């Protein structure tokens, strides 16, 4: 099967790759662009470990074809910090010990960032339902939810 040339923007950088039309965006990010921060936990859109945003919309990159990224803007975990300055969510995840194995962490951070951009002051229940598509098997979610709420509070304070 011949490959398709794709030009897209990832974390602000224009990139090109050749995609087999059967490959997912996740495959392309990981295997063609070397962006292995997004993870495959299921390949069926159930676990959220591959969460990225596509033109600002939160998606499971395992359910998007690589060729669909043509001309779009993709944002992944690798673009979340600005240089060495961590996003408040990343900092709060460290402070709250909100990760154990860390495998679900990139997807949860990307998903939580998308939440806070839509809703800067979510309730605990809103955070829980927003993140219900991101499985974590280690933490029982407690410290993750606390970290997201704490990051939201800090970001509101900074914005004020």
């Amino acid at each position, binding site marked *: 099967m011949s490959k398709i040339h794709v030009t897209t923007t990832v974390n602000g950088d224009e990139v090109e790759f050749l995609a087999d039309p059967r490959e997912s965006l996740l495959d392309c990010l990981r295997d063609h662009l070397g962006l292995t921060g997004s993870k495959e*936990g*299921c390949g069926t859109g159930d676990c959220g470990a591959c969460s990225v945003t596509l033109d600002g919309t939160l998606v499971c990159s395992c359910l998007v074809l690589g060729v669909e990224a043509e001309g779009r803007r993709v944002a992944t975990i690798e673009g979340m910090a600005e240089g060495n300055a961590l996003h408040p969510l990343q900092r709060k*995840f460290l402070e709250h010990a909100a990760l154990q194995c860390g495998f679900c962490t990139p997807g949860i951070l990307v998903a939580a960032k998308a939440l806070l951009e839509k809703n800067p002051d979510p309730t605990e229940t809103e955070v829980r339902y927003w993140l219900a598509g991101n499985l974590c098997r280690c*933490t029982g979610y407690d*410290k993750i939810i606390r970290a997201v709420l704490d990051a939201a509070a800090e970001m509101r304070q900074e914005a004020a």
Partner: protein
Amino acid sequence: MAKDELSEFHLVGTRPLRPDGLDKVTGRARYGADVSMPGMLWGAVVRSPHAHARIVRIDASKAEALPGVKAVVTRADFPEGLTGENWNLQENTMAGERALYDGHAVAAVAATSALRAQEAARLIEVEYEVLPHVIDVDDAIRPDAPVIREGAADATVPEGSPPNVARYIEFGHGDTEAGFAKADLVRARSYKTEATHQGYIEPHACLGQLGADGKGEMWVCTQGQWFIRQMCSSVLGLEAAQLRVTPSEIGGGFGGKTTIFMEPLSLALSRKAGGRPVKIVMTRSEVLRATGPTASASMDVKIGMTKDGMITAADAEFRMQGGAFPGAPVDMALYCAFAPYKLPASRHVGYDVLANRPKCAAYRAPGSPMGAFAVESLIDEMCRELGLDPLDVRLKNAVKEGDRASYGPTFGSIGLVETLEAVKSHPNLELPLGPNQGRGIASGYWFNHSGETSVSLAISEDGTVQVSVGTPDIGGSRASIALMTAETLGIAYEDVRVNVVETGALGVNEPTHGSRATFASGKAAVIAARRAIAEMCRRAAAEWGIDAEAVEWANGAAQPAGPNAGKFPPMGIEEIAAKMGSTGGPISGHHESVPEGVGASFGCHVVDVEVDPETGRTTILRYLVVQDAGRAIHPSYVEGQFQGGAAQGIGWALNEAYVYGQDGRLQNAVFLDYRVPVASDLPMIDTQIVEVPNPGHPFGVRGVGETGITPPLPAIANAIEAAAGVRMRSLPMSPPKVLAAIKAAREG
């Protein structure tokens, strides 16, 4: 002065950021599937669609003709003549004469891309002769059940036992009949638990390379790189030292990554493909169909109790299937089931039964959750019948130091009573409950484990310290080991770097399992640090021209031990390190042992639930974990273990189960259908760390990883009875089952 003689610590018990945290929040941390190599091929595995079938013929000619396909392997590529568990591992890695479960590997292929490998796998033709199969443990133990493997029974199995019984155990003490005769209430009940999966979010992944010279390397997500080395070497007939295994960061394990699955296939494919490295990444469906679920269990329990709540005797018969191979943790289940209770008389019987399911792997406190589900449920039911407080009854019968354990030996220092007292005074117990709401409590136990441990510590030129450990960091153990090392050396936490190293860098280490990493690697790191301290004291003594015995170590520096030793200002670790090249060479400390003094951990959980009488759905309103940690080195990660264990137990109790069709195929091999708890299923999980220090560890550590998965199963069953008046004796307690029980009770 040894730090364990101090009552106050500088670092132990604090909550610094974990050293590997930055990599893990930025996506830089490299897990099993994240590494590629020059010349790399991709592997794919052909798996049996049948629960039980004879393999008549494998024809790979079409696959081999596909451009880009570099190697195909079947069982014919593995050495013959293995015995015991090595044979089991080899047979599970790649089926021989018969496929023994849905998902059993029968062939594997390597090609130049992942898609090409998958295409090739589909072109491998396997002809099967389907055989009768058996899935349920109670069916599998019948005398007329389809026989999984002739001659699988070991020497423990009495003659005349049913053909699928692979192991048998019986133990006990005292006169149970006399005990039951003394009881005011005797109740006997039967319970069932379904198989569940560890459910780590990272699927198994490895990148293996093996040359014709027998030298190889592997990058792999595993709980134990030496186990991978030993098992791959055994299965493939390699020399262990010729295989270097490097552990990736690991995306969860919970016991399921303490063994091999497709790892030998990547090596076998690589060797056949001229030594090119081969990467194999499992799909989620492969993980669920072919990697370690836990056992399923069918259990009969009988307990005698006086009207004031004293247990007089107990009898348990457990039957467990752990797939098509021996190894269901029926012994551990029996050992743990009554561990929180002082029993005047007991009898325990266990059967390890074969069935056409994947080979079970360890899952967090293997066996303990099933046994607790049966025993803790029945104790609660009897307390209810006798009008007794279930917590008081647990306190009344609680084992203490010096008591005989239900499984025989005498307990050393344990913290069950302290744990139960902490529960009793917890404010959650005073909170009011509404209609359709109920509260349940249950205890849990895990022995904890030590195991082969090797740690090496080296002082750098600037006085900072590196520690090489062999136990992969699954949940913050780098942080806890760095804290203990820095505490021992009297230096800053940030000045210690803990590295999880490959098999070529240390002696043999058992995996991070059995709740052992912080206990065993931590204890070894402390001893290694003390050895480095002794050497640093010798270097300082030589500089000062005094006896080494006249030097002691305090606050990160050597100093004269007293006025008679002479007057010298303290010589700090930086100064000693800077000079070490000219004072005798590198300074390091090592420790290799099977550390003694592992401390057991008891826990007690309290759960409040609401049961919807119209749907049977159970909502967890509130959850409390109280557990003895001995000493919490990094309390956040201890809490994390408590919370994570509870969440897995909640999933096991309410939703998770392997669902098989009549054809013996697994029907829910995706996360959509194998329903692990999601964020919206759970409340915050309250924790209270009890600290009854373990005398066997320099800082008092007890492993905390496993006990927490045990109490949720019975605690939730007990809460459901309190909320809805129905007693659930089989898992999962899913809405349809609870609703059916509610309807039956209404009609009853």
